[in-house]
């Protein structure tokens, strides 16, 4: 079945499981169409690998419309590839040229162990949320929604922070494999809303403690996380986290 006319050379990371030693494998994909997404190009490659009787390249993906945060891939040294503000599933082959060689790796971080090939385990993020990334309100406790007017600017700011998809690109981009942007996005979202105030300082302290426990690195304010974030989460979230964290520690010691 013919698709298009581009030829792409791929260097793909293969690794059987977390314990195995990995290596790069070369593949050529012919008949690539510029309208294909990057993941559809891998689908086509995988079809041909299975047809040859070999094992396809494992990669995480689900919604394929840039919102679920499942897809990852470190493409030519950049999480989610060369475009800004998009996930790998939204990256299309028209962003590459016929004959290009593309290197594809998994997220690399101690806290994200490889499951297989390009698939990593990001459950550390769930544990950080479980440590405090919520407002404690049981179902049925709420008052009428409009009893709580919220300044539009604060609501919009909180929404911007809340648009994080938890993909882990920030960790992959960071030279220290720090999860600060991810944690800061949740901390800031709730810190900007009146509903988030009662637990504001305990929240930041527990989330940061869990982040450290998971083995993520420290933040040195390089900003690669924000530059590579597919949802363009701003570094000001980290500033907010730092301010709240200092206050939390001060309150603890006071």
């Amino acid at each position: 079945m013919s698709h298009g006319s581009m030829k792409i050379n791929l260097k793909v990371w293969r690794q059987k499981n977390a314990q195995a030693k990995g290596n790069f494998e070369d593949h050529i994909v012919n008949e690539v169409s510029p309208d294909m997404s990057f993941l559809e190009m891998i689908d086509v490659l995988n079809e041909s690998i299975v047809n040859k009787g070999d094992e396809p390249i494992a990669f995480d993906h689900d919604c394929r419309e840039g919102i679920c945060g499942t897809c990852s891939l470190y493409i030519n040294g950049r999480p989610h590839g060369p475009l800004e503000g998009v996930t790998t599933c939204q990256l299309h082959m028209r962003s590459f040229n016929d004959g290009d060689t593309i290197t594809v790796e998994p997220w690399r971080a101690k806290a994200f162990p490889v499951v297989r090939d390009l698939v990593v385990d990001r459950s550390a993020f769930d544990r950080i949320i479980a440590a405090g990334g919520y407002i404690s309100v049981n179902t049925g406790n709420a008052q009428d929604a409009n009893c709580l007017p919220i300044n539009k600017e604060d609501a919009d700011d909180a929404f911007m922070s809340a648009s994080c998809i938890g993909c882990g690109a920030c960790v992959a981009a960071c030279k220290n494999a720090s999860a600060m942007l991810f944690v800061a996005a949740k901390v800031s979202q709730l810190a900007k809303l009146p509903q988030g105030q009662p637990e504001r300082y305990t929240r930041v302290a527990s989330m940061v403690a869990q982040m450290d426990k998971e083995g993520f690195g420290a933040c040195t304010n390089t900003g690669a996380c924000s530059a590579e974030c597919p949802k363009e989460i701003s570094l000001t979230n980290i500033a907010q986290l730092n301010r709240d964290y200092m206050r939390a520690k001060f309150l603890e010691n006071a």
Partner: protein
Amino acid sequence: MSKLESKIPEGPIETKWSKYKSSVPLVNPSNKRNLEILIVGSGLAGASAAASLAELGYKVKVFCFQDSPRRAHSIAAQGGINAAKNYQNDGDSTYRLFYDTIKGGDYRAREGNVHRLAEVSSSIIDQCVAQGVPFAREYGGLLSNRSFGGTQVQRTFYAAGQTGQQLLLGAYSAMERQVGMGTVQMFARHEMLDLVTIDGKARGIIAKNLVTGELERYFGHAVLLCSGGYGNVFYLSTNAMGANVTAIWRAHKQGAVMGNPCFTQIHPTCIPVSGDHQSKLTLMSESLRNDGRIWVPIKQGDDRSPNDIPEEERDYYLERRYPAFGNLVPRDVASRAAKERCDAGFGVGPSKMAVYLDFKFNMMRYGRVEASKQGLPNATDEEILKLGKEVIKEKYGNLFDMYKQITGDNPYEASMRIYPAVHYTMGGLWVDYDLMTTVPGLYCLGEANFSDHGANRLGASALMQGLADGYYVIPYTIGAYLSKEIATKAIDTNHPAFVESEQRVQKVLDTLLNIKGTKTVESFHKRLGKIMWDKCGMARNEKGLKEAIVEIQALRKEYWSDLRIPGVQHEFNPELDRAFRVADFLELGELMCIDALNRHESCGGHFREESQTEEGEALRDDENFAYVSVWDYKGESQWELFKEELKFENIKIAQRSYK
């Protein structure tokens, strides 16, 4: 199964639910701590149920196939969530939301369930705001609303084009809070492959650990299936790649009957197919129809760029055919109208299977408001358009960006091209008022059940139903069953029923791996999808459906004799997992065609070509088909049909009109 009991409480519709809540048996807190509940799926229904039930004190285990519960496909819902708050003072009420939903569903949903949904809708918004869900707000700090199809009031709450994401993260956070407290245990990358029943009651599941390939056994006093819809039976749909029917299909084969399996929603505004490499389709939210106008050129085969086609040479066919609702007709109506124009030769774009969705008119309208607000009475048209684009960007920025990424075209400058695509399945496991299936102790919530949307779901009602079921319905209704289970001790998973169930799954896995044929899962899935789309899609007829049944049976035979799966079971093997899912789709597809063939009328998304009005609108046959088709599995290709008669006591049943 002998007979269907919907268990709708007696009494006037307005008091059924409140009376039920006041009289349903309760389980005392110390007993709740000994009762275990398994929840399959972590989307809006699953996560909200998990959080709410754990808050009540039950011991909960949640399973999802994704790497994190936050990735369930509810996250991709764009436009909004309905609630009868009447914040806009435009005439909304519980009754009107109830009425719109029944009418929108083309009179094929159950009144009792739908009224309850409308009743609890307001509390959902309250709960979400309390959790920190950042809904869109007006400058006064209060919540903003927008319009959706099939209604004439503004009752849709939203967070830009990411409403599902924000609601899911709210429910996910509430659930993770319980994980932190140890009341919910989360099993990500686990897929339910069978239901375990003991003495006719649901008592557990067999799940596959997708990382190790191990089969694992879990006991529960009750099991909740919240596993979403099965639109992926069509291969191409707006569903996530992993969305599947397996959990409910395995339950179906263990005795849970299916309701209205053929009722599929084809969403009118999706990005058209671009080639045969296509793996999925992307929705452009219905909210865009609020501010957009759908059109095709007046001339057939007009190849000019949309910007070069003047106003008088455009046919805004929805506004022409349905002046009362215009671009806001329900999804089924809008989809068929698009197909009709394309089939008649007025389609646009390279494939000619697309229509235009234009925003310029409303950009100018918003621009004029902005110019007035900013004190610019002499703004030029160009300046007004620029201001209008900013407003549109704030409302729908992420959708416009998504469109640009996928198509390479800029929708701020020219009309979008759109075409209908499979989006949602109204059908699913049959449930009673308690959301219990025909297997005692087995419940089904959200899109996976059949209950609230009849033959067509209105926009922004899926999120409402998922959260209604999880936050406000199941915490009450599950008590009716569990109050009788307090003496049941946890059952050891070495019980013969668990062993037998695991062996059943193991046999399927072994068979799949031992076929060692020549064709990939993907190739079979594509072929199944084509049969379904061509013969059980937007238009269906007797001849096509009969052919489809024969073709699916043949394809299934080929599947079990010529499938190739690489690798082994005990490793991370997505091909094997997918093969299990497609095997179930190959059975479901046949039932959908059988159901569509049986329903010799058109209603909502189910359009039988033999049953239409002179104007080409869906023609119902209330005398013969005012029932839910309920299918009981009797063995391969064999089902027995039961009928749940639908009684309309509060709404006068009428031919639906949006003209």
